[in-house]
């Protein structure tokens, strides 16, 4: 390459030697070529020349402007230097001035700080001196809240400086005024027409003024009790009015007031003392005792009045509505931790119901005897006319109205009973389903271990259902729906032995590779009837329990469908459903319902499983029997 670079024959190179090039051309080329070459070189030279010229022209302007700029910069810089000098000078003078100012102000600053602190102190003192007057003004304005606030604010300071004579005076004044305030508050306390809310407020103030809480709470209770008795009196007087109105008045007036009292009592005496512990420990217990006694006595009075009022109501529908309201209100109230008023309330409701039945019975009897008398009279008159053909007519006259009457009453009662029973089933079903729902929702089904036992929830479910069963058995015999199941123990063995032959879930034999999973359940669905979940039940034990179990299992099903299961999660469900199968089928009238629902649950769990492998049925049997 170096040769090439130093090549003297390269016309564009650095070491070009025109003579040698020329010689070379003369030697190597023909005349024609030389001529051509010459014209080419001339042409090239000319283009280069013109190129150079344009370049120079083009850049000429730029050169000129560059020179201009440089010249201008020179002048500007000179100017700038001047300004910079000026700036530095100014800065110097500013610094000196500021130093001067700060040095002159140094002394006064401390003075100002001192003055302002004195000012605040004076302000505080002024507040103290004015306090008695202020308190008086406030009292006259009946703005007790502000008065109490001011006093509490100043109290600490007063206590601290109480050895100084001037402060002593103020303190004494304040205390006097406060005594007055307290007495005024108490007076208001005693006034009959103050509302409970105002009462509570007053007590609050007194408490803030460090009155003994012990006596205050007793006083509070006695006064509120007075108010409540007044309301009870009103209620008593209202007894003649419409019963619905009465009940509304009772719940909105008496009960809500009682709730208000209890709530404010709790706020004032019980909860507050947890915050500041300067009171005796057992006060809380004492206060609570007072409260409980108070509630119990008042509720007792209330119950007395209510039970008296509901005794004589003729219209069943109206009575039911009133009792329903009464019960709802009581249930919503959770004022007392120990006493269960709902139970007393229920007793009243039950008693009223009984009374109602007795009334109906009484009416019927009366009606019967009246008709009998009438018949006898007619007979007596007819006998004289001596015509025996009228006997059947008389009989009809005797029987038909009675039947009508009985029918009417029974219809009435039957409807109420049906509603009651349906509601019972819904409530019990809900209780069991809540348990099942929580158990499915809270568990992490993806990371669960291989099932060894039945989950405790399932045992609870079976226990609960058994408890419900015995509860219902007190009302309905079991022999009107089912085969005999005399004692608990025999039932259990019976059910296990039967179920082993009877029940083999569709899913027990299922292996994912063999059967299309949905096919089985779909075929099953085709041949089974639609199951109504919240349906009306009949008056026998099996039907009631079927209702409850249906609701529970359907909840189980819906919850399972909302989760995702691992292999072991699925197997746990398999174990659980098998366990339920073993124990629940005996309670129901149609065990296919239980089969079907449990199959659906297991089927849904299979669908919702990432790796659907079921357990050996024999293992499931063993686990369930061990549980």
């Amino acid at each position: 390459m170096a040769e090439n670079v130093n090549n003297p024959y390269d016309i564009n190179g650095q070491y070009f030697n025109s003579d040698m090039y020329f010689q070379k051309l003369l030697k190597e080329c023909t005349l024609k070529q030389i001529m051509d070459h010459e014209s080419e070189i001339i042409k090239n030279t000319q283009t280069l020349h013109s190129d150079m010229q344009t370049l120079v022209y083009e850049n000429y302007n730029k050169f000129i402007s560059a020179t201009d700029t440089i010249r201008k910069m020179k002048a500007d810089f000179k100017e700038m230097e001047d300004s910079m000098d000026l700036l530095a000078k100014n800065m110097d003078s500013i610094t000196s001035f500021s130093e001067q100012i700060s040095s002159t102000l140094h002394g006064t600053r401390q003075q100002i700080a001192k003055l302002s602190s004195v000012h605040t102190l004076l302000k505080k003192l002024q507040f103290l001196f004015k306090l008695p007057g202020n308190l008086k003004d406030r009292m006259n304005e009946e703005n007790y809240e502000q008065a109490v606030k001011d006093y509490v604010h100043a109290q600490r300071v007063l206590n601290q400086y109480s050895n100084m004579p001037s402060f002593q005076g103020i303190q004494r004044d304040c205390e006097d005024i406060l005594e007055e305030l307290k007495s005024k508050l108490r007076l208001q306390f005693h006034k009959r027409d103050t509302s409970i809310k105002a009462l509570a407020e007053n007590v609050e103030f007194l408490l803030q003024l460090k009155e003994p809480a012990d006596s205050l709470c007793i006083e509070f209770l006695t006064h509120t009790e007075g108010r409540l008795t007044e309301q009870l009196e009103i209620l008593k007087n209202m007894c003649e009015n419409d019963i619905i109105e009465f009940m509304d008045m009772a719940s909105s007036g008496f009960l809500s007031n009682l709730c208000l009292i209890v709530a404010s009592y709790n706020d004032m005496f019980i909860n507050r003392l947890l915050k500041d512990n300067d009171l005796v420990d057992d006060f809380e217990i004492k206060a609570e005792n007072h409260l409980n006694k108070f509630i119990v006595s008042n509720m007792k009075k209330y119950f007395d009045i209510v039970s008296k009022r509901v005794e004589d109501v003729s219209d069943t529908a109206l009575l039911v509505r009133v009792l329903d309201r009464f019960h709802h209100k009581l249930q919503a109230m959770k004022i007392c931790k120990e006493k269960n008023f709902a139970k007393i309330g229920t007793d009243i409701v039950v008693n009223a119901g009984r009374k109602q039945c007795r009334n109906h019975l009484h009416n019927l009897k009366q009606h019967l005897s009246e008709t009998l008398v009438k018949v006898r009279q007619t007979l007596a008159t007819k006998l004289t006319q001596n015509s025996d053909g009228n006997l059947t007519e008389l009989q009809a006259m005797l029987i038909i109205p009675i039947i009508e009457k009985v029918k009417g009453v029974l219809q009435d009662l039957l409807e109420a009973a049906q509603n009651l029973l349906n509601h019972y089933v819904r409530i019990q079903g809900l209780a069991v389903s809540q348990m099942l729902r929580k158990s499915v929702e809270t568990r992490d089904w993806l990371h669960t271990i291989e099932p060894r036992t039945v989950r405790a929830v399932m045992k609870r479910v079976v226990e609960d259902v058994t408890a419900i069963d015995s509860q219902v058995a007190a009302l309905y015999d079991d022999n009107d729906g089912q085969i005999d199941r005399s004692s608990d123990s025999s039932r259990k063995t019976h059910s296990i032995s039967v179920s082993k032959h009877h029940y083999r879930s569709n899913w027990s034999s299922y292996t994912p590779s063999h059967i299309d999973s949905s096919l089985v359940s779909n075929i099953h669905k085709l041949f089974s009837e639609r199951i109504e979940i919240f349906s009306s039940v009949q008056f026998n034990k099996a039907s009631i329990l079927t209702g409850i179990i249906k609701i529970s299992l359907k909840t189980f099903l819906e919850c399972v469908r909302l989760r995702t299961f691992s292999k072991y999660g699925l197997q746990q469900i398999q174990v659980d459903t098998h366990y339920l199968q073993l124990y629940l089928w005996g309670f129901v009238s149609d065990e296919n319902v239980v089969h079907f629902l449990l199959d659906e649950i297991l089927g849904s769990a299979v669908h919702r499983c990432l790796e659907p492998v079921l357990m050996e049925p024999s293992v499931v049997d063993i686990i369930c029997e061990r549980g």
Partner: protein
Amino acid sequence: MENDNPVIYGLEFQTRALSAQTAETDVVRFLIGTQSLNFNNNQIHLVELNEETGNLKTQVFQHSLGEIWSLQASPTEPDIFITCYNHLSEEGICQMKGAIWKFPEIKEYTNDILQLDKLADIDTAPYGTDLKTIAYHPTDCKKIVSVVDNNFVLWDLANKEPQVVVSGTLASKGQPRFTNGKWNPHNGANQFVTLNENNVRGWDFRSPTDAAWSILSAHSQIIRDLDFNANRQYFLSTCGDDGYMKFWDIRLPTEPILSRMEHSHWVWNIRINRFHDQLVLTSSSDSRVILYSIASISSEPFGHMVSTEDEFAFQNDESCGKKKLEDGLVGRYEEHEDSVYAVEWSSADPWTFASLSYDGRLVLNKVPRKYKYQILL
């Protein structure tokens, strides 16, 4: 289509998610999402009803990321929708995720399974694990709200990546969790309404720290769904596990205006018709769909004709005063054999609705003609 017979379409997977193609107002179209734990098999089905012949045309798309729990179509763009899906990660952990999808252009319905374009992921992981739903703003397709655990988060989709605008949290005892949520279409759609346990809460995005209003203990058990009356401010409906559907005026949160129980199990879904808001649909796990006519909460005036619908009116219209329809059942639809978890009105035809049961059966029904004429005439 002149007969009122139901049209049934069966899918081979379990299904929960159903949405009308909201932005499409000419053709009756619904979207269905499947739930299969064989995650790669999940699909989106686009179902179109030919109103002349009553035939269905369908197109299946692949949704291989996971099983779909919730599906919502964009309010303005027909080919865009959002899914919430359960995704199985490589470590074997199930996770709820959200994503925005776009249909490829379809000229012809085919039997092939087509691929979807994923426009964006909506990463709700910072707000919790339990993504319940992602709801589109009623009119603005750039705004969505996701409901996660006890948070609701407003996202802006105007840029390429979804961005969080506002989020709100329900903080109270016992770790509350939202179960569902919906926009309030009124008042400039500044409010979002959430459900948890048996409470309804309304939140304003302009001050999302506290609930703007609430209906506490609206039902005796869990509330499953709610819907607003699109034509009447303040009116909303709820339904829940106690089997009731209730209508509320949110200015009066203590008492429902109306409550009814017709189903014999939990009510999972409630939808008020957007055009004729006396028509209300509910679906339940007693495998029924019930259509009601609740004229007492409707925005339509009684006693005189709606002048804009004169094309249906008789010639001697001044004599035919419109009688107020009684509140009551219009129909029970019993074509399903499993729990019905979703029901939707069509966005194109006010008289058509679809219901979807867990066993993968989609049923398209129409309001009976008798009631249709009663409402129109």
